[in-house]
């Protein structure tokens, strides 16, 4: 098992996922429920930051940075400007006649999609596992032993006096050097996918400027048209 998939399945990553997803869902619920529009916009900022955290958990670091820059930096500021330029900020979020039908539609949508997503047999990519399981357990055990003795060495022994170490310690050190070499080897021959997701930015740049270059240029034209349109709409006659 390579290093990145070990990190992804660790306990801390799972805790981070649950914290981030619960905070995103709660703050996006607050966006549609709080009566004070300004506070709703601040909860929207919190939801955007949490979604950036989910992108980081999904190994899309560039997209997380783009999310922070564009959504938190630009779109939230535009929405807050729009709130401040209009009246009735503190009591401006009443529902219309469709409150109960809308909640029913949203609930049905959520239930149907959850059912479909749990039922479908997705083609999950296989995680590379070049070493057998027994070897894994051995290596993990020796690795923890190694770190314990390593710390002891660093704190209590001077490297100059390393010739006075006990034979047991020397044996442990020999084991650890063997395990470390094996670890480096297993990192070296990890699959191509893990290599892609360890450094996505060059691949994204290559894709944007080679395969998707037409869409890239069209999006720039779209942004220009939106900018001109917004200026034309907002101009004092």
């Amino acid at each position, binding site marked *: 098992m390579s290093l990145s998939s070990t990190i992804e399945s660790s306990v801390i990553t799972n805790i981070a996922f649950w914290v981030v997803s619960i905070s995103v869902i709660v703050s996006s619920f607050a966006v549609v429920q709080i009566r004070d529009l300004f506070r709703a916009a601040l909860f929207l900022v919190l939801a955007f930051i949490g979604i950036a955290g989910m992108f980081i958990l999904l190994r899309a670091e560039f997209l997380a940075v783009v999310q922070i820059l564009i959504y938190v930096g630009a779109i939230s500021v535009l929405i807050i400007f729009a709130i401040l330029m*209009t009246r009735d900020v503190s009591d401006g979020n009443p529902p219309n006649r469709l409150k109960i039908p809308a*909640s029913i539609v949203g609930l049905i949508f959520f239930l149907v999609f959850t059912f479909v997503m749990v039922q479908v047999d997705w083609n*999950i990519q296989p995680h590379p596992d070049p070493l057998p399981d027994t070897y894994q357990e051995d290596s993990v055990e020796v690795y923890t032993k190694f770190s314990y003795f390593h710390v002891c060495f660093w704190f209590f022994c001077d490297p100059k006096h390393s010739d006075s170490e006990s034979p047991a310690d020397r044996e442990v050190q020999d084991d650890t050097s063997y395990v470390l070499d094996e670890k480096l080897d297993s990192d070296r021959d990890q699959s191509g996918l893990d290599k892609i997701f360890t450094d996505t930015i060059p691949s994204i740049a290559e894709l944007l400027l080679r395969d998707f270059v037409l869409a890239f240029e069209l999006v720039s034209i779209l942004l220009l048209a939106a900018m001109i349109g917004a200026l034309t709409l907002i101009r004092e006659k």
Partner: protein
Amino acid sequence: MNLENFLIVSAAIFAIGLYGTISKRNVITVLMSIELMLNAVNIAAVAFSRYLDPSLISQGTDVTRSALTGQIFSLFIVTVAAAEIALGVAIIITVYRSRETVFITDVNQMRH
């Protein structure tokens, strides 16, 4: 933490955004709910591109291309959302100048 967790979170955010879009009178809340729905779609696209096996759809072509297509789609969705929010805020401010309201139930000249 696997694909289904991310997809369920994405569906929850999309459902909340759908509820806010349909049921609110203030047009700024409607815009914020639309942003929530776009973000939910982004999460789903990036989760698919992270977890699904790309060698099944890239027959003979580059594996990198099919493994990162979801992130490219999310980038384009972010750009379109930025353009949409700029135009939306401009329209809101224009309507507020002429009609003195931001409630979508009050802007109904086209019905009469």
